[in-house]
C-alpha cells in the first residue's frame, strides 16, 4: 500500500503539469484564431527577433572559430567562413599558451574533470544524507544549524574566502585539488541540503514509519528506501553541481595552484594574455570548448535543468 502511495508521489513529481479543467463537456477553449492574425504576427515576430538575439553570440563564436586569421581581419564577424579551417580548434585544445605553458586547454579540461567529478559526488552524498537526517530524524538544534546554513548561502563568498584559505593552509591542502573539492562541497551544501530536505519531507511519512516498525535503521532506510525513490532529485542535484562547478572561476583561481587551474581560469588566461598577437579564432574555439560541457548538460537534460536552476538560482 505505502509503496503505491510513494510511487504515485514520485510519478507526480516527474510528470509534467496536466490541465485540470476537463469538467465541461462539449467544445472547449477559445474560438480558433486565424493563424496570421496581427496579434500572432506580433507575438511570433517579437519572439523570433529575441531568439535571434540570443543565438547571435553562439553563431558568431562558431563562425569566428572556423575562419583563418587573414579572413577575420578582412571580413565581418557575421559572415560565414569562406574557407573552413579546424586549425584554431586544434590549437586551442593542444597548443595555446598561458604564460610559459603551451599545452593548450586540454590541461584545464582534465583539471576541470578532476575537480567536477569528485566535487559533485562528495557534495551530493553529504547533502543527501544530511537532508534525509533533517527531514526524517530531527534532533535538537538541527533547525538552528540549518537556518545558519541557509542564511549563509546569501553571504558573499568574498567574506568567507580568506578564513577558508587559512583553514586549508593549516590542514596542508591549500592549493591542491582536495582543497578545492572541499570548498565546492561547502558552498554547494546550502542549496543541495535544502533540495534534498524538501524532497524527502514531501515523501509519505507512512513509508518511513513502516520501515521503522520493520526494524530498519538510519542507513538501511536511506539506502534501501529513500535512495531508490529519489532518483529524479539526484539527477537535478547532479545537473546543478556539474554546471555550477564547471563554470566556477573564483574558487578555482583562489584555491588552486596554476598547474591545477580549472578550464575557466585557463581560458581567461589564454584569451586575456597580453603577450603575442591576438588570435581571435583560437580564442573563440577555446571559449566554445569551455562552454561545451555545460551546454551539453543543458541540451540533454531539458526540463530537469530548468528545475535544477530554479532551485539553484539562490546560489547566485
Amino acid at each position: 500500500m505505502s509503496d503505491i502511495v510513494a510511487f504515485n508521489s514520485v510519478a507526480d513529481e516527474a510528470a509534467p503539469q496536466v490541465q485540470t479543467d476537463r469538467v465541461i463537456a462539449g467544445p472547449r477553449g477559445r474560438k480558433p484564431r486565424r493563424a496570421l492574425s496581427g496579434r500572432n504576427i506580433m507575438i511570433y515576430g517579437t519572439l523570433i527577433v529575441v531568439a535571434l538575439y540570443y543565438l547571435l553570440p553562439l553563431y558568431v563564436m562558431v563562425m569566428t572559430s572556423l575562419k583563418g586569421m587573414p579572413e577575420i581581419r578582412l571580413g565581418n564577424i557575421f559572415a560565414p567562413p569562406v574557407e573552413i579551417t579546424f586549425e584554431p580548434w586544434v590549437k586551442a585544445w593542444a597548443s595555446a599558451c598561458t604564460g610559459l605553458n603551451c599545452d593548450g586547454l586540454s590541461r584545464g579540461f582534465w583539471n576541470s574533470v578532476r575537480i567536477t567529478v569528485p566535487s559533485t559526488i562528495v557534495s551530493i552524498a553529504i547533502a543527501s544524507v544530511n537532508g534525509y537526517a533533517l527531514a526524517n530524524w530531527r534532533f535538537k538544534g538541527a533547525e538552528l544549524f540549518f537556518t545558519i546554513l541557509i542564511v549563509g548561502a546569501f553571504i558573499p563568498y568574498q567574506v568567507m574566502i580568506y578564513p577558508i584559505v587559512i583553514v586549508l593552509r593549516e590542514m596542508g591542502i591549500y592549493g591542491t585539488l582536495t582543497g578545492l573539492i572541499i570548498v565546492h562541497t561547502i558552498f554547494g551544501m546550502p542549496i543541495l541540503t535544502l533540495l534534498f530536505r524538501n524532497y524527502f519531507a514531501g515523501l509519505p511519512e507512512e513509508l518511513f514509519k513502516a520501515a521503522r516498525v520493520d526494524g530498519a535503521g538510519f542507513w538501511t532506510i536511506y539506502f534501501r528506501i529513500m535512495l531508490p525513490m529519489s532518483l529524479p532529485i539526484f539527477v537535478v542535484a547532479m545537473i546543478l553541481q556539474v554546471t555550477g562547478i564547471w563554470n566556477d572561476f573564483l574558487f578555482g583561481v583562489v584555491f588552486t595552484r596554476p598547474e591545477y587551474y580549472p578550464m575557466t581560469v585557463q581560458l581567461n588566461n589564454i584569451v586575456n594574455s597580453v603577450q603575442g598577437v591576438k588570435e581571435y579564432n583560437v580564442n573563440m574555439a577555446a571559449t566554445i570548448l569551455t562552454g561545451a560541457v555545460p551546454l551539453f548538460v543543458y541540451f540533454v537534460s531539458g526540463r530537469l535543468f530548468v528545475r535544477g536552476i530554479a532551485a539553484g538560482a539562490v546560489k547566485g
Partner: protein
Amino acid sequence: MAGYTQGSGRPNQWLRNLNAKIASVPMILTAVVIFLGGTIWTVVYSFTNSKLLPRLSFVGLDQYERLWDAPRWLVSVQNLAIYGVFSLIFSLVIGFVLAALMDQKIRFENTFRTIMLYPFALSFIVTGLVWQWLLNPEFGIQSVVRSAGWESFTFDPLYNADIVIYGILIAALWQGTGLVMCLMLAGLRGIDEDIWKAARVDGIPMWKTYIFVVIPMMRGVFITTLVIIASGIVKVYDLVVAQTSGGPGIASEVPAKYVYDYMFQAQNLGQGFAASTMMLITVAIIIVPWAYLEFGGGRKRV
C-alpha cells in the same frame, strides 16, 4: 529510539539519534565554522591593519576611512550601483514581457525557452569573452555597421570609460534574462485561469489585466526573483574579469574585484576585509527586510 540506553536512570541524551547527528556533522561544521565563524573572523580583522598576514593589531575604523577615500573603491561602488539598478529593472521588465509573450499558448514554446535559457548554462567567463569579441571595435558590431556604409557609427562601450559598465550590462542581461523569464513564466502559470476569464467578461484589455491584476498577484514571485537577481549583482566578478579586467583604467572595477585584488594581489588584507565587510552589509540590507517579510511576518508564503 535509536541509542536509547536503558537501565541506569536517565538515557544518554547525546547518544540518541546518533546516526543523524553524525550525518549532520559536515553541515554543522560548515554552518558554524565557515559561515558563522568565517564571517565573524573577517569582520573582526577588518578593524586591524593586517597587511601580508592577518594580525590582531586593532586600528579602529582606519581601514574603512581609507576604503571610502580610495578613488578605485568609489568607482567600484558607483559601477555596482549603476549596474545593479539597470540590471534589476531591465531583467525584470524584459523577463516579464518575454514570459507574458510565452504565456499566449504559443507553438514551439519549448524551442523558444531552450534558446532563451541556454546562455544561463554558460559561465560568466565564456559570456564575458564572447561579448568582448562582439563589442570589439576593430572587428565586432561597430566595424560591421561601418563597413555597411555608416562610417561614423560608434559602438565601443568596452573602450570608453564613461559607458564601459553598460557594455558589461549588455552581456549580463544576455546571460541572465532567460532565467528571469522562466521564473516569471512559472509565476504566470500559477495564476488561476478564472482571473483571465473574469477580466475578459468585464472587457478589461489584456495589458490592463497584466498591470493591475496579474502583477500584484505575482508579488511573491517578483520578490523572490528580485532577491535572486540582487544577491547575484553584489557578487558580480567573473564577468568583469573576463570582459574588461576592470579597464579601461579603473573604469569598470566592481567591489568583488576590489576585495580579491587587495587580498591576493596587493597583499593588503585589511583593505580586503573592510571591503568584503561592506559587501556583507549591502547583502544584509537586501536580505534582512525580505526575510522578515517572508518568514517573520507570521504569514506563510511559498
